[in-house]
């Protein structure tokens, strides 16, 4: 069936619905980018409460939060997580996307680390890097939003921001700062509006993921089991002094 035929069928039915519904859906924000910028300024004043609430909820869903003072302490935090679990290999986001370069510092701490390129690469290289991620023990990513209400990490894919880093290794470490914090899911909705103000957007890839704790299932006799397909463990490293991420929106 063609698009025109299909839509015509729908139109002939919706034509008969006048007066059947009396719905007034919630209004949408005009100029979401400006609204988001305004919201971020408001939120900046109460980031301490927000990060505390985030921590509570994140731990409730099985996440582990680590707090460090400065960005240069992040590699130590990651190396500690890896060391305690005897993890050897790491895949990470590109330094610009992450807000700091972890590849060299982690290599210096004995971890086999590969950071993603931030430009288009050949199919062969993409396949090699996918195999690398599938074999890696630990994935390091940034965070585009941290939602306090639900303990959720939102990650946007893109150049230098491979999806697999938060998906294929059994241990995921996400690095964030106060700029990423929002209070509620509805505020996250505003960010999604802002990110999509241009379609397709000038930045970002084709996948946005809300991650709320480690992968889980209860499909066998309702027994909660972690790490069925995605990571068994999710860690978040909060950098109090902030990261130097070039934020697009």
């Amino acid at each position, binding site marked *: *069936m*063609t*698009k025109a035929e*299909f*839509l015509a*069928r*729908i139109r002939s*039915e*919706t034509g008969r*619905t006048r007066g*059947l*519904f*009396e*719905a007034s*859906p*919630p209004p949408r924000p005009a100029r979401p980018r400006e609204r988001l910028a305004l919201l971020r300024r408001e939120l900046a004043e109460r980031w301490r409460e927000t990060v505390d609430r985030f921590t509570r909820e994140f731990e409730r869903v099985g996440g582990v939060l680590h707090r460090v003072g400065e960005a240069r302490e992040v590699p130590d935090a990651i190396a500690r997580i890896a060391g305690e679990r005897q993890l050897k290999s790491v895949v990470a986001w590109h330094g610009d996307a992450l807000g700091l370069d972890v590849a060299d510092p982690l290599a210096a701490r004995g971890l086999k680390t590969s950071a993603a*390129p*931030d*430009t*288009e*690469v050949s199919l062969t290289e*993409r396949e090699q*890097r*996918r195999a690398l991620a599938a074999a890696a023990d630990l994935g390091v990513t940034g965070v585009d939003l941290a939602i306090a*209400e639900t303990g*959720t990490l939102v990650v946007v*894919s893109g*150049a*230098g*921001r491979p*999806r*697999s880093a938060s*998906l294929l290794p059994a241990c995921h470490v996400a690095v964030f700062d106060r700029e990423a914090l929002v209070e509620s*899911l509805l505020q996250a*909705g505003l960010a*999604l*509006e802002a990110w*999509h103000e241009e*379609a*397709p957007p000038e930045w*970002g*890839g*084709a*996948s*946005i*993921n*809300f*991650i*709320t704790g480690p*992968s889980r299932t*209860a*499909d*066998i*006799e*309702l*027994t909660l089991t972690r*790490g*069925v*397909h*995605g990571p068994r463990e999710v860690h978040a490293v909060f950098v109090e002094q902030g990261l130097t991420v070039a934020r697009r929106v």
Partner: protein
Amino acid sequence: MSEVAPATPLRERAGQALRDTFLQQALTIATTKFIGLRREAFDEFPEGEALRDQARAIKEATLQRLDHWLETLIGSIERRGGHVHYAASAEDARRIVLDIARRTASGMAVKSKSMATEEIHLNEALEAAGVTPVETDLGEYIIQLAHERPSHIIAPAIHKTKGQVAELFARELGRETQPDPEVLTRIARAELREKFLQADLGITGANFAVAETGTVVLVTNEGNGRMVTSLPRVHVALMGVEKVVPSMTDLAVFLAILAKSATGQKLSVYTSLVDGPRRGGELEGPDEFHLVLLDNGRIKQIAGPLREALYCLRCGACLNVCPVYRQIGGHAYGYTYPGPIGILLTAMLNGPESVKDLAHASSLCGACADACPVRIDIPRMLVELRKEVGERRIAPWPERVVFGALGSLLRRPALYRLSAPLGRLFQRPFVRGGVIRRLPLVLGQWTRTRDLPAVAARTFQERWADLEREGRR
């Protein structure tokens, strides 16, 4: 008619479920647990009630202008380099997916849990065309290995014990193991990880699609939705036309109530927003993205009697609270969609004939409407379905005769007044302790599983008349 009617009658299917002691126990444990988790989640979330109203309003308004929102969605997806296909029937949808599989020379398809693909019986069609479908949600994987069908919308394998799963893995995968959910899950992870990396085609449903941005949204707990939409070369999403929402603002409203209604989580572990094919600079993502829009009986309900069933989010909350579902489980319903909402969806997809028995598999207690995140008035539509089943003369004949007689009685006051003394006369041989436990002949069907209250010694009308006569009113 898109689905084959079950081979045995509802009464037999229900009886079988009632005699299955493990199933009875599993159903009680699972549904009780889900009810408790859902209640806790909403107790902690006072704004939830207002958001449920908003979500319902969004569904109503979107459906009212569905042509506009679908056209917007199609435009947004095509701008991002995705392709949109139009399926009027289950057969159309299967053919579209098979064509894509053939054209892309796909040998293996990984699937994340999707009721829409269950509805069109896609797996059988893929197999027949030489494409191996692999279900990757753990519950779906288990029932695929067992050649069964899901028994709950969100917990498809609740009817299976860990012992049965261990036997199944031993037989089908050659992996002998303890019946330990942890170990079994690890085996499934290893088996399915290979498939994710090998598969050519990823097939998903869609929990939502955002019209203005062309975003398909998948909600999972395991992460299989992310794998399926990121690792294979081609991604096909199959979606009922009613799943479109206008904007990201609207999406946030639904996300705030969906997981709470389904599993009591504030949010499921993964909410994945898919914005079309891989974009330049990305290491992963499909080269091709296809959305198949499915009608299959939905469109003619936009202005039809089952319109409200199009608001359904497939959360499963109405199953858990339904006194009938809690007793008989999903398989006894006999079609893809079980539970109270399932009866309506079955009627929508397969016509009212298909639910001539199922329309009565409800006590009309209203628990489903209370639990529904978008407040679908399921009992009202079930009553309407019963009426339609009656009018079309497809109800069983004793039912038609009895209700026909009752109807003419209730329409004639004189006859009705006479019915009380007559009833008292005829019921005399059957009344024991104020109730009728057994009726003769075909009427016995009614009293087989329940008691009929006897006509009172003095009816209300008679007592009222007495009071008036004595001037005490």
